[in-house]
């Protein structure tokens, strides 16, 4: 009897795991096809991956905890600057640099989370903006450490595993980034489905009921902020290693706002949505903004308005709805 319940409990658990593996395979496939199709644009593609990590981290906060933030780049920039400064000061192993970036992001996440969770709603949004602006000004002022408005340059990361050099073509940087993205994505898929992830979702849906269940929200949300900071810091460190320059724009309100737009485009509350949104947004930006930056702004604005009016759940949510409509008949017949 006990065996039977265990089995029936284990059976549905396999299904999302299988779906995750297919998803990871799809991401790897898309990444590798990018590698073969656009061998001249690998630097741009690496940037897409690092921003995708930022958007994923934002999704953890906005999509899974329901905390609107316009300051996520603070965490990304902290990771980028930490990795860059460490690299200049003699720590050149890329994996170690990524870890340093992740830790710096997590610490910044702990700090910003502790401040932001003091308020709710609009003041919270304003706090997130103020925090990223404060860090921006601090990075600008501390030019002895960060290079100020000239940016931090002169990094020379050692070859990965002592074999693969970070050269001008950016092949190893891109493949390194892709592997990093796959690892992070796999870990995040497990986290958002864990009991902890479920509590976060619950806090987003109905905070009152969750607190009635005896759960104190603050440490749960703070933990998510720390995880989100680690992911964003990883993205920042990847950008620092790949481009070997860290600019003030990596900790800016503009980057934070763009990350939110990408997330909304892809779909809030889906890890896949974050990736889809980043790829589409950055590919469009790459082509249209090169022609005329003001046309680009008009286009982004129009897309944002259209999403809010017609597809509030973003592209991935809309795709889900379409899929549900298509499969509803088949699914019912099967039962």
């Amino acid at each position: 009897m006990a065996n039977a319940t265990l089995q029936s409990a284990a059976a549905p658990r396999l299904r999302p795991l299988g779906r995750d593996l297919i998803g990871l395979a799809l991401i790897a496939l898309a990444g590798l096809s990018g590698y073969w199709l656009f061998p001249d644009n690998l630097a741009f593609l690496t940037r897409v991956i690092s921003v995708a990590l930022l958007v994923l981290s934002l999704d953890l906060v906005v999509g899974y905890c329901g905390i609107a933030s316009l300051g996520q780049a603070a965490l990304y920039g902290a990771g980028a600057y930490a990795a860059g400064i460490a690299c200049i000061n003699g720590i050149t192993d890329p994996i170690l640099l990524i870890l340093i970036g992740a830790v710096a992001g997590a610490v910044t996440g702990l700090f910003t989370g502790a401040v932001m969770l003091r308020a709710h709603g609009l003041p919270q949004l304003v706090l997130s903006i103020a925090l990223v602006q404060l860090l921006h000004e601090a990075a600008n002022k501390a030019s002895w450490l960060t290079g100020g408005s000239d940016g931090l340059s002169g990094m020379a990361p050692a070859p990965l595993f002592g074999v693969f050099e970070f050269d001008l073509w950016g092949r190893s940087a891109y493949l390194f980034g892709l592997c990093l993205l796959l690892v992070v994505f796999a870990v995040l898929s497990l986290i958002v489905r864990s009991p902890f992830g479920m509590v976060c979702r619950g806090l987003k849906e109905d905070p009152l009921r969750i607190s009635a269940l005896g759960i104190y929200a603050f440490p749960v949300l703070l933990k998510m902020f720390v995880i989100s900071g680690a992911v964003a810091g990883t993205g920042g460190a990847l950008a620092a290693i790949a481009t070997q320059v860290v600019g003030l724009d990596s900790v800016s309100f503009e980057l934070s706002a763009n990350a939110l737009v990408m997330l909304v485009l892809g779909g809030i509350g889906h890890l896949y949505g974050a990736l889809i949104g980043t790829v589409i947004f950055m590919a469009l930006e790459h082509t249209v903004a090169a022609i005329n930056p003001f046309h680009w702004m008009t286009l982004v604005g129009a897309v944002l308005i259209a999403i809010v009016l017609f597809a509030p759940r973003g592209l991935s949510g809309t795709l889900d709805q379409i899929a549900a409509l298509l499969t509803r008949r088949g699914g019912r017949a099967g039962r």
Partner: protein
Amino acid sequence: MQTALSIAMDAFAYGMALFIICIGLSLTMGLMRVVNLAHGAFAMIGGYIASWAGRDLGLGYGFGIALAVIGTVLIAIPLERLLYRRIYDRSELSQVLMTIGITFCIIGITNYIFGPTLKTIPLPAELAQPVDLGFRSIAGHRLFVIASGLVVAGGLWFLIERTGFGIHLRAAVENAGMARTLGIRTEIIYALSFALAIALSAFGGVVGAEFLPIEPYYALRYMVTFLVVVSVGGAGSIPGALAACLLLGAIDVTGRYLVPDFGNFFFYLAVILVVCAFPRGLMGRAH
């Protein structure tokens, strides 16, 4: 002493210019519960129209202001009917996204029409001259901004607290369903208050152009400043907005005079401290 006085005068005038722009945003956010990040975009449209009227049509400053206010409201009314009306009862995130979208569109279209250059608004001779106050002289334009700010604050207070329209507005905000049942046409009240907020933003954009120059990315550059000021003051409160504008204006101007290489550092530090200490803003209402 001389420096302290001139800093104080500048800070006061700058705070008043901020107030004229931000009070409209405070009204839409506090009374109508819409986070309108496109507020700065309407101030920018006002500035562009006034600049066009002053430089290309050769109209006077007063006509420029009137044209800017009327033109901006005419542009904003269809936007309210088509777009804003749909987000009145949506989540804050939807409102933020929609209004950022509107801001981007306005920036893109304005620059397509007027070109990506800094726009100046010619001042009349009376305002360009310094005025002697007895103990020191001050640019006439600053006095004009300060006076306008005081008039706007007083006028709004009177409108909301002492007139029939104000009573209807407050009723519609407290309980829209009950107000409708009592025969108040809430959608007209909302549209009128929205138009009033936009008119104030256009007015502020024109008179504040000496402090916040009209340029292509105006709407984006000051979007955060306006939002921050309203949030610090407490949305919907006129004295709160006034206090926040004067406090943050003073910190900003003093910081720029005394420690210019710190940029906005102290401004945002003050914002974080105030919001942490008063999560609803200096004089916000509990909802």
